[in-house]
């Protein structure tokens, strides 16, 4: 720094180079799947398709809501071409707001109809299930294990079970759908019973898993991907697909979803990218990865972990996607208020 000319020159160069960004040539993807997994996948897709893909990943602190907010904020000048959401409800909400364009991907033909938008604005693939994760040291006998979402309100588990706060991500979708399924009064009663039962409402699904693995609670509600990561780390945990008995509502399945953002850059590239994301090989990759996502299509090998059941082998909860999406914002406000945020 002895020579001030060098200093000024360096600074000017840095400033100029930093400000010389141009609008990217290829499509831009907003992706809420865990970056550790999704980044190499997207980079690989870019190479395969010969596209220069710009990617913006989920921030755990804001979760999917952060990217959804960004798409909503940016709607006058969309920056995203493709939205890859690791859950469904917010994608549907964007579709309802008219921010996604219809596109029937050839790769989506084999996706079961219940996981596709009738207007082709979004397509679901590779799902996670909302499961109960059990600490096997605390509850070694499987006969003692909980089996239903209702166990959150069972006095037997008072202060010994946990669930993430339903403010973002899959838990928000789950609780909003549950509200739809139980009706306002039924849900209110259930929520009050949970509070009465000293259920630990934690910040995230990851946190519920950690608390369970540490033995601070006996069990918790979480997603299959969190369970699988814990299992791989050798944590003393097991997984239960809840509500499988006759008359019970079944296990909630939340697929990833992808859609093309209206007016985003490189719409043609975006279509190619969506085709590639919806390819069966992607589902296979997601099933084999640490997140152990459950393929929605037949003919794809599911996760190796026997605890994670393949589709069709368990009772899936029937939830109204459109209703859930419509009521997501209001439910979010409501839950936030309940948790003092």
């Amino acid at each position, binding site marked *: 720094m002895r020579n001030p000319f060098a200093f000024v020159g360096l600074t000017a160069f840095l*400033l100029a180079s930093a*400000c010389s960004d141009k609008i*990217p040539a290829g499509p831009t993807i907003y992706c809420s799947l865990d970056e550790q997994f999704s980044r*190499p996948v997207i980079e690989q897709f870019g190479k395969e398709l010969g596209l220069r893909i710009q990617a913006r990943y989920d921030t*755990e602190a804001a979760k999917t809501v952060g990217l959804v907010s960004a798409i909503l904020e940016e709607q006058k*000048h969309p920056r995203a071409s493709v939205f890859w959401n690791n859950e469904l409800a917010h994608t549907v909400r964007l579709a309802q707001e008219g921010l996604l364009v219809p596109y029937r991907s050839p790769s989506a033909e084999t996706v079961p109809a219940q996981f596709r938008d009738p207007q082709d604005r979004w397509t679901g693939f590779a799902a996670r299930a909302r499961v109960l994760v059990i600490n096997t040291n605390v509850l070694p006998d499987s006969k003692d294990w909980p089996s239903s979402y209702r166990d959150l309100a069972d006095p037997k588990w008072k202060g010994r079970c946990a669930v993430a706060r339903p403010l973002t991500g899959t838990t928000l979708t789950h609780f909003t759908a549950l509200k739809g399924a139980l009706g306002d009064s039924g849900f209110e009663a259930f929520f009050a019973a949970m509070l009465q039962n000293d259920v630990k409402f*934690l910040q995230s699904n*990851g946190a519920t898993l950690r608390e369970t693995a540490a033995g601070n609670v006996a069990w918790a509600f979480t997603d299959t991907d969190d369970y699988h*990561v814990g299992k791989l780390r050798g944590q003393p945990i097991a997984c239960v697909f809840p509500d499988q008995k006759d008359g019970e509502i079944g296990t909630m399945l939340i697929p990833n979803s992808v859609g093309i953002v209206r007016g985003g850059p490189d719409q043609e590239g975006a279509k190619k990218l969506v085709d590639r994301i919806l390819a069966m090989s992607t589902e296979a990759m997601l099933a084999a990865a640490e997140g152990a996502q459950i393929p929605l299509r037949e003919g794809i090998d599911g996760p190796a972990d026997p605890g994670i059941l393949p589709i069709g082998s368990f009772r899936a909860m029937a939830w109204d996607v459109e209703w859930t999406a419509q009521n997501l914002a209001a439910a979010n*406000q409501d839950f936030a208020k309940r948790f003092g945020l």
Partner: protein
Amino acid sequence: MAARARDWIARAPFCAAILFVVCFVVAPMLLLLWQTIDSQDGLTLVAWRELFADPQDRARVWASAQLGLASLCVSIGLGFTHAWVTVGRDLPLGRVLGPLGIAPLVVPPIFVAMGFADLFPVAGFWPCAILLGTAHAPFVCVLVARGLRSLDGRGYEAALMLRGRGRAELWLVRAILPELIAGCMLAFLFTVADHGVPEFLTVKGKTWHTYSEGVFSRWTRRAVGTTFADRQSPIVAAAPLVMALLTMLWLALKLRGRADERGVRAELPLRPLGGWRWPSLLFPALYLGAGVLVPVFVLARWALGSAQKAEPMSLAFLRQSFQKAVDQGVPDLMHSIWLALGTAACVLLIGLPLARRAGRGGRLVEALCAVPIASPAILLGIGLVLTYNSGPLAELFGYGFYDGWGFALAGYVARFLPFCVLTLAAQVRRVPLAAEEAARMLPRSALARALTIHLPPLLPAAWSASALVFVLSLRELDLAVVLPAANSTAVRRLANAVHFQHEDWSGVIALLLLSIAVLLPLLPSLIAGRKLASLS
């Protein structure tokens, strides 16, 4: 005409810097304010009417105030004692431990939280206060040390002659009160504005929330809000916080400014610790242990595989972690380094003309530049996003600007400009005006004067400011979450990775980040053989 043109050329750097402040500090803040009253149905105060209507809002304000005060006690306990026993004392290793007072500033508060959370349950109020107090103790420590170094030692000796050692020490405390209070205010200010650590502790089971958490949480839901008031609530809710912080900052700067006016006449004499000589080592041990060693220890454990229950910690695992870190985090780390280097360089380029004006009586410039410290980073980030996402400035800069590194860089520079301007303005005040006037009398160009006369006396302070900004940029989380291009920085990636239980490689990346934060600013000092104390 020629004279007027020359005048303009001479003023160009200042005008450009002011333009930057207007575009990246004033405009975003004004836009935020404007949006709170400009609804689709015309002007309304509905969002403001709901301010504090909710008892939970009041509870959060109260929680923030309590947390701020409690963590301040911790900051004083750690920071003050460290400076007190290392400056002008006969503490063993005092010459090394003293300059290390600034070291905990390098460690992002989130790392401190992650470190403690790995070893202790940290969900309660006091653990939270201890974490934040530890993370912000360097503000107290550095300013108290500065106060002790800048005092006229003869005053202490006079007190010693008149009233004895005990009273003289009390005199000393009173004499450095401006610095102590300024340090306390900065520590308090950063604690109440921090949302990252409280949010992280919520993951660990904390059930109460601070005011900043509320602002951030509302922001994440802002775009999906159902009413105008919902959508504007994060900004409205933050306004009282900004006002409170601005007031405190103003007081802190005033106090620090008063301390700046004190000229050095004689160094403080060595004050023997007597029987406390060895036991006093406990204070630096606590300060540096909590602020640096615990986080580093935990990160090292993570890298060795402590989070993996399936297998014991091993060097083989460390190799694996390192490999994963190279695959996963090195691009983010490089982004962080470039962004921090760019910020440190640009902040000087923009800060120098502003600091020169601020240092020569431009109090308004100084106040304007200080605004970003008073505003929580998340709020500045929101303002920047809204300003450059769409609207006239977005059109002016081009819509590609919003996604690009230029935008992230501008945001970081705006955020950290106060640190540079305030540091340099203090140095400008120390340079006699007559020396600059002497240069003005000579037939040399404004550029020659700037480079030969004005800049060199500021270089040591510029280097310190730049190093500080580099470190702060490396550890910045809030802006990294909000600004699109800054999303791919190492700290944001780390915060995510820990959520997703990737402690192994994130431990390695965090250690690399810390090493860079320490080594890069130190490198020129080490090469030039400059005293380490100059950085503090």
